């Protein structure tokens, strides 16, 4: 029953038997979707099917849901991401990323630029264009501030950044500050 389909396939319905709800799973789906955590977007990635449409799962209390997982529910923040040498660009939704680790891992997956989140092992450096049109190093400011001001991302070859005095350490935020 409930186990194979996680709620949507259940036959439980409040409609009278034989009458009312002729499509039990349909009406359940409607009701459940109403209550589903509103920022959920099922179309974007190849994530596990339907898991998120279960009301109240994972059991995280509503205060935490509202305060942890997004700034503005439902607003998407797609930005273009280019990588030096790649023939075409990608797009990524910043509103569904929770922080820098998330973003960097996704970039690694999209472009195969493994190690971009690591200190020394990457030949690439992520930068972004902010609202003022300046190109900034990813990671200097708090995540919320970054995602609000980021207009586009670029994965730049570290070699091109040589002259700027970028050390692998700087890149990983504050490790060099050892009191």
């Amino acid at each position, binding site marked *: 029953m*409930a186990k194979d389909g996680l709620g949507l396939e*259940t036959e439980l319905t*409040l409609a009278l038997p034989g009458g009312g709800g002729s499509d039990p799973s349909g009406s359940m789906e409607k009701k459940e979707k109403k209550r589903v955590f509103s920022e959920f977007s099922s179309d974007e990635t190849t994530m596990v099917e339907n898991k998120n449409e279960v009301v109240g799962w994972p059991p995280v209390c509503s205060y935490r849901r509202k305060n942890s997982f997004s700034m503005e529910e439902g607003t998407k923040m797609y930005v273009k991401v280019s990588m030096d040498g790649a023939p075409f660009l990608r797009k990524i939704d910043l509103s569904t990323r929770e922080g820098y680790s*998330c973003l960097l891992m996704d970039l690694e997956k999209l472009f195969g630029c493994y190690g971009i989140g690591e200190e020394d092992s990457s030949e690439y450096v992520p930068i972004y264009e902010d609202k003022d049109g300046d190109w900034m190093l990813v990671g200097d400011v708090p995540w919320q501030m970054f995602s609000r001001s980021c207009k586009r991302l670029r994965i730049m070859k570290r070699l091109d950044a040589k002259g700027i005095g970028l050390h692998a350490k700087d890149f990983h935020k504050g490790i060099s500050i*050892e009191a």
Partner: protein
Amino acid sequence: MINYFPEEVLWHVFSFLTSHPDRNAASLVCKSWYNVERFSRGKVFIGNCYAISPERMISRFPRVRSLTLKGKPHFADFNLIPQDWGGNVYPWIVAMAKGSTNLEELRLKRMVVSDESLELLAKSFPNFKSLVLVSCEGFTTDGLAAIASNCRFLRELDLQENEVEDRRGQWLSCFPDSCTSLSSLNFACLKGEVNVAALERLVARCRNLRSLRLNHAVPPDALQKILAQAPQLVDLGADSFVHDPESETYNKLKNVMQKCSSIRSLSGFLDVNARCLPSIYPICINLTSLNLSYAPGIYSKELVKLIHKCKKLQRLWILDTIGDKGLGVVASTCKELQELRVFPSDLHVVGNVAVTEEGLVAISAGCPNLNSLLYFCQQMTNAALITVAKNCPNFIRFRLCTLNPTIPDAVTMQPLDEGFGAIVQSCKGLKRLSVSGLLTDQVFLYIGMYAEQLEMLSIAFAGDSDKGMLYVLNGCKKLKKLEIRDSPFGNMALLADTGKYETMRSLWMSSCGVTFGGCKTLAEKMPRLNVEIINEGDEMEGRPDDRQKVEKMYLYRTLVGPRKDAPDFVWTL
């Protein structure tokens, strides 16, 4: 013999009884003990506000000074209960005001609290000292203003995870200049601006302030000034932290932190730049409690650096972005860890960043004192749980939540029955358990057999048949709260031992197999239970057929019959 002791002696003896179970037991011995106990009970705990009426509570415990009340069932946290279900505190405050109760402390959880209630509270009890609201709703900052203005001896105002409407008033400024008694102030859950100057003055004059948790609206330079005024703080919550490690504010903060040598507990950091974390390194060595579960801006490497310094940590709440490796660092650093909560950072189950059974095993190996766990994970194995059970036999609370609710053992693809079985068998003091993953009736057989001290059990998407639920009801003698969702338990299990429910506080069943007929039968048989059905169906046409499955049922024992404040969508059978 003891019955002939004069009451004063009994009174004195009872003054050493602090726990509710002890006092409840003492009151059952004989009439004279019952009477002495009821007049001497100052702290009253009511786990379900509908189990008793305010009037009866006051008449039994006329000298109550401290009241704890809980309202909605636990699953209300997960949006399973509609608005306006109930749990209003107002009748309690009215009754106590009328009864001239000398109320000093009020602690509420999952209740609806109106501004009117807060105003009445503030004006009715001259010795009121402590207000703690957890996961409540229904009030605004106007209500807080009433508390601040009128409670002359207020020591504690602790607001945890409430839904508060911010009226942009000046509630903080309502604390009069004569208020110097505050020892605990927590308004982290408020969304709006506060009068920072008033806050600074308040902190400066409350020399006993030990616990301070600020909201996002208190800017970093104010934080630094406040900390300079309150180096005696033991518990600090700061949502808005400094952003620029080159700034003057950062330097001042760093310096002032070094003087805050009493801080043992830290939380907040909603908006922190990881490069500014070194400013708190000086206090890390003394920290016993750290809550970074609302701080997505700190990623793994920085987090690990921070934790490396927290060798005395006993309680840690974090996001799963810490990863298994990060948990390994916790395991090797925090040898005194007792409580760990790992929350999901991403509800979308992308398989992105998360923790697995490896992190948990590492923790169990490194932290033998672990007794309380909440662990949201990508996957789990029986082997891991068996190892955890062996390493940590002291669990009192064990809550495991797989992000996919019916995921099997990641290696063997078997159900996780054996793993949880090992946990209940090894942890003889286990009081609270939440299970998840692919589970058959077998896990409930184990729970019924071994979980002798279990008081609360949460089940979701588990079991094969009524037998599962029966194993639990028959086996767990101390069970108080059972909550079940999306599991194939029906009338047979529900009705097998109806007397059991009078020994429990409550039972919640949603999306299971119980029918209206079954619930009606139960309600008829057991007049001292309220069997409530929650209907949200728009398709409802009159009373449903007995064979109709019930979407949501909540039943609880009560001494006062069906509640009078039930909304239209709640039917008491």
